[in-house]
């Protein structure tokens, strides 16, 4: 069984002039979490968007279950990859259920409308996220944390096996950040592959995830955190001193800044 997602020598530049990143290769297996780390503006979101085929890479290829994604129809890609954007900008006040049911789109013909079984699937996705009580609420009037859960629920209704998330914790308070990380961990335990971008290296440790790092010199590092996360790399990448310490009492490593 090959990898769910295989990235080969990927490179990207805007208008062919400024190279954003290059020579990026890694794999994502089922049930794996990969965190994309890197300083601001280095191209984390651009890389994520290349994986979602929202942008076309200049060099290299992305294989989905062994098939080149560039050759697959959009519908096929959407049946495997779900995308959770950093923020949803609601325009009309659809109910949460009406929103989540659109996850069925890649499984329906252009002129088809969702039937009872599709609403059922959407309700199950809400249940998995523990937000069934929100089903009939307009999605314009729920909290940012709830909106993030709704967005993930749609990816589940989509029956995606790989979920891409652009800074899933960006606009959340500390409690909600941890709750969303918990959800991500649960999803990976259920066999979903997950790629997310983050600004917080400690999340890699919290999630016990693999790290994909584009460092300050645009050099790509990939591997389990134990293998590639070092104080030197983190400090150089973010341009501030950072420590990696084993903390007694919580039995895990943390990435933390010394006193300022």
């Amino acid at each position, binding site marked *: 069984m090959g990898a769910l997602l295989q990235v080969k020598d990927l490179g990207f530049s805007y208008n062919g002039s400024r190279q954003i990143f290059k020579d990026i290769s890694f794999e994502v297996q089922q049930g794996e979490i990969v965190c994309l780390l890197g300083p601001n503006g280095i191209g984390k979101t651009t890389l994520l968007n290349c994986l*979602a*085929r*929202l942008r076309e890479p200049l060099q290299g290829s992305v294989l989905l279950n062994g098939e080149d994604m560039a050759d697959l*129809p*959009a*519908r*096929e*890609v*959407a*049946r495997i*990859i*779900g*995308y959770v*954007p950093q923020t*949803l*900008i609601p*325009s*009309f*006040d*659809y*109910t949460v259920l*009406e929103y989540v049911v*659109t*996850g069925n*789109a*890649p499984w329906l013909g*252009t*002129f*088809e*409308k*969702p039937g009872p079984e599709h609403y059922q699937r959407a309700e199950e996705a809400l249940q998995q996220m523990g937000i069934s009580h929100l089903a009939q609420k*307009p999605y*314009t*009037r729920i909290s940012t944390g709830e909106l993030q859960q709704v967005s993930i629920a749609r990816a589940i209704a*989509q029956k995606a096996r790989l979920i891409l998330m652009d800074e899933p914790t960006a606009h959340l308070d500390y409690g909600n950040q941890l709750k969303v990380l918990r959800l991500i961990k649960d999803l990976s335990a259920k066999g979903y592959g997950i790629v997310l971008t983050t600004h917080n290296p400690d999340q890699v440790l919290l999630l016990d995830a693999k790290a994909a790092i584009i460092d300050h010199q645009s050099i790509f590092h990939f591997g389990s955190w134990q293998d590639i996360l070092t104080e030197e790399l983190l400090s150089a990448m973010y341009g501030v001193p950072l420590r990696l310490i084993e903390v007694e009492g919580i039995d895990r490593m943390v990435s933390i800044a010394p006193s300022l």
Partner: protein
Amino acid sequence: MLLLIGVFLSLSLGRYSNDPIKVLNVLLSKLGMNVPVDPAMVGIVFNVRLPRVLASVMIGAMLSLSGAVYQSVFRNPLVSPDLLGVSSGAAVGASAAILLGAGLATRQIFAFAGGILAVLVTSLVPRLLRNRSNMMLVLSGIIVGGFLSSVLAIMKFVAEEQTQLASIVYWQLGSLASILGNELFAILPVFLVCSTLLLLLSWRINILSFGDLEARTLGVNLRQVRTIVIICASLLTASAVSISGTIGWVGLVIPHLSRLIAGSDNTRSMPVTLLIGAIFMLMIDTLARTVSTVEVPLSILTGFVGAPLYALLLYKQRTRLE
């Protein structure tokens, strides 16, 4: 049901006679029943009132449906169907026909062609600039609309004041006074085909309203669906405007009202929009021909009714707007 009652009531109202019993008898006799009929009434009902009633129903449905679609596709509840220049194009077309001294039929064809041409030019600009975002299309619509309103101004400036200028102004206010049966048959196919397509695509239109990024990650063939939807909505508006002249407010207000009644999900609100639009326009046109001895242009009435209605809707939704 409400629509049928409305149609009947509207058929009963008019300058010749306001007796619903007579009208009912005329309709029943047409269905093969043996009832006493007023022969003059038969002519009035079938040749004068019925085409007009049907036209108002169809035009109301067309304008409000395309308004609903435009609002969803452009993710903006303040958008009306003339966003991409349909109405200004049609106005220029109709005015050109008036200046050339052409008859009614030519005027309608010119108006239709003008409306469609304007939308084509609007959709060409983003293509030339190689930026196919929605925002570029909206800006392009503003450019084309602005240019066309200047063209229209020149036409008005050179028009002969007493006759041509008056015709242009009157056309821009909208009226169904001179409607004939065969015009209905000309726009009926457009109405049937485009409305059916749009209603079939109503769920996809929900997805379009999430924005390009989300639609693409859901595997929707964005360019294809958006093109079909915009073409259908523009055809609807252009056909409606070509026989009635420009009519304001309907395409803006009715979709709002429908969303308030049926919710935002287009699979439910679009059919409701179609019906309410039809009933609304029927009421307006009936008012237009009965309220005084001279015909009142439609845009005057839609403005007087539509603007306060819009204010009322905003009042109801005020907590949702931030």
